[in-house]
């Protein structure tokens, strides 16, 4: 849905195990939007898809699993080289 006005330096992350080059300094939520991935999570109640909505930390729609930690606000986390990002499907579970 989005494009960058100017190309710039990127870092490489994985999104659901697929490598992706995303803009350095971008938030994880922005990277998801830029890659046109549709949704960043599905809801625990009905499983419907949700995507970033406010981009400033107040709607909690962009909750994702980032480097193994669930429920991170993706709009408040800056991408880093090697970061492992996963879409959060439904309710997050306890990890071993």
């Amino acid at each position, binding site marked *: 849905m*989005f494009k*960058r006005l*100017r190309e710039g330096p990127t870092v490489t992350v994985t999104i659901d195990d697929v490598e992706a080059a995303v*803009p350095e*300094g971008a938030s994880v939520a922005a990277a998801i939007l830029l890659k046109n991935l549709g949704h960043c999570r599905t809801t625990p109640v009905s499983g*419907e898809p949700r995507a970033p909505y406010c*981009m400033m930390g107040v709607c909690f729609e962009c909750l994702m699993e980032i480097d193994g930690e669930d429920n991170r606000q993706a709009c408040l986390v800056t991408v880093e080289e090697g970061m492992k990002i996963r879409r959060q499907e439904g309710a997050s579970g306890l990890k071993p």
Partner: protein
Amino acid sequence: MSERCALAVIGGGPAGLATATTAAELGVQVELFDEQSAPGGQIYRAIENADTEHQAILGQDYARGAALAQSFRASAAGYRSDSDVWAVTPERQIGVISFGSADIVDAQFIVIATGSMERALPFPGWTLPGVMTAGAGQVLLKQEGMVPDDTLIGGGVVLAGSGPLLLLVASQYLHAGVAIQALLDMTPRAGYLQALPHLPLALIADGYIGKGRALKAELRRADVPIISGVTNISANGDDRITSVEYDIGSQRQTLDTGLLMVHFGVVPNGHLAAALGVEEIWDRRQLCWRPSTDAWGGTNIDGVAIAGDCGGIAGARAAEYSGRLAAFQAACSLGLIDAEERDRLAAPVRQALKRDIRVRPFLEALFTPPASLMDNAVDDTVICRCEEVTAGRLREAVSLGCQGPNQVKAFTRAGMGPCQGRQCGAAVSHIVAAARGVEVELVGRFRVRPPVKPITLGALATLDVD
């Protein structure tokens, strides 16, 4: 180990930066906590990285933030970026988490400057991917230099709602070469009449009316279709938005689009203050709760003040002024200046503030959505996005005897999800009030409790408590 500071400022937007810089200049030991990684808040987001080309897209008002960020950086104020404040206690202990590790900071004086957020106004389909706020669009433009890609969005981006920010985003998109399919202006026609008596005062405020007119003229020159008198928008689509529908007069219209950006004004982002127990009042003109404060931003909690839009919407410049006033009071209360000096320093700032906010009654009368928009959502509209609670279920709870939002919450889970009622809170209060046939202030609002940000047990475990 717990840390100490004389003045803790929470929030790094114009109010927080002005508070911290001013207090530091007066010799106060200041720490500023902000959840972003660079100063500026939302309004001046990523201001330190903006080159002239980027500033040209974003406009002059954005550029104002550069000086603010610069003087803050040059000051002696301490700066904790990437820090989520998840609790503040009446004893002025601040729970903060940063990069996975937790701290408790003891402060002698606290200024809360958490700014504003966009008013959430539920409509059918507002949870679909591809529906976002105009503010979100602005964040993407400021931080990542991202704009809607016409080739990926059937028909081009549609903007809908009302308020100055909507016009500003449209203008910024124009500068960036983005094709805007339509701007659905939902400003109620009655608003123009109600606003008219406030126009003379607004005209002598610092240039705001001229700017608004210039924005509109610019959009018209660029042939952006501005459709006035729009009501009842809804977003259609299965797993993402494919079209937006709206009423104009008695006709239902449809526009195909993959991206709808909505804006219905801004309200105080007062979650942290509410969790602390700061007394709030219902502001009928702004249609929101705001903290009850004195002339220095002081609250019912000893040593805790509010600065900027978090205390009631007045805009970025007013936020700077109120930040300075809060800093004078903090310095006085900490014994660095006496009351006479405080008042002397404050006098010109109060003058500037008074001049600046002359435009507010006009903007409030014109753009604040009518209360009916908040409370007559159709029954199957999702109100609580997190727990997917519809307007119908809220009304059902009221018919079962729930008197206020907190009872409704227990019955329906509305407001119990991760956003803790930040998005649905106002709408829930409105719907409950309307269903009972009473005023919103009578039914009250969700109680807010810490932690107000997600915090892991692992992070809590890093706390070294005595």
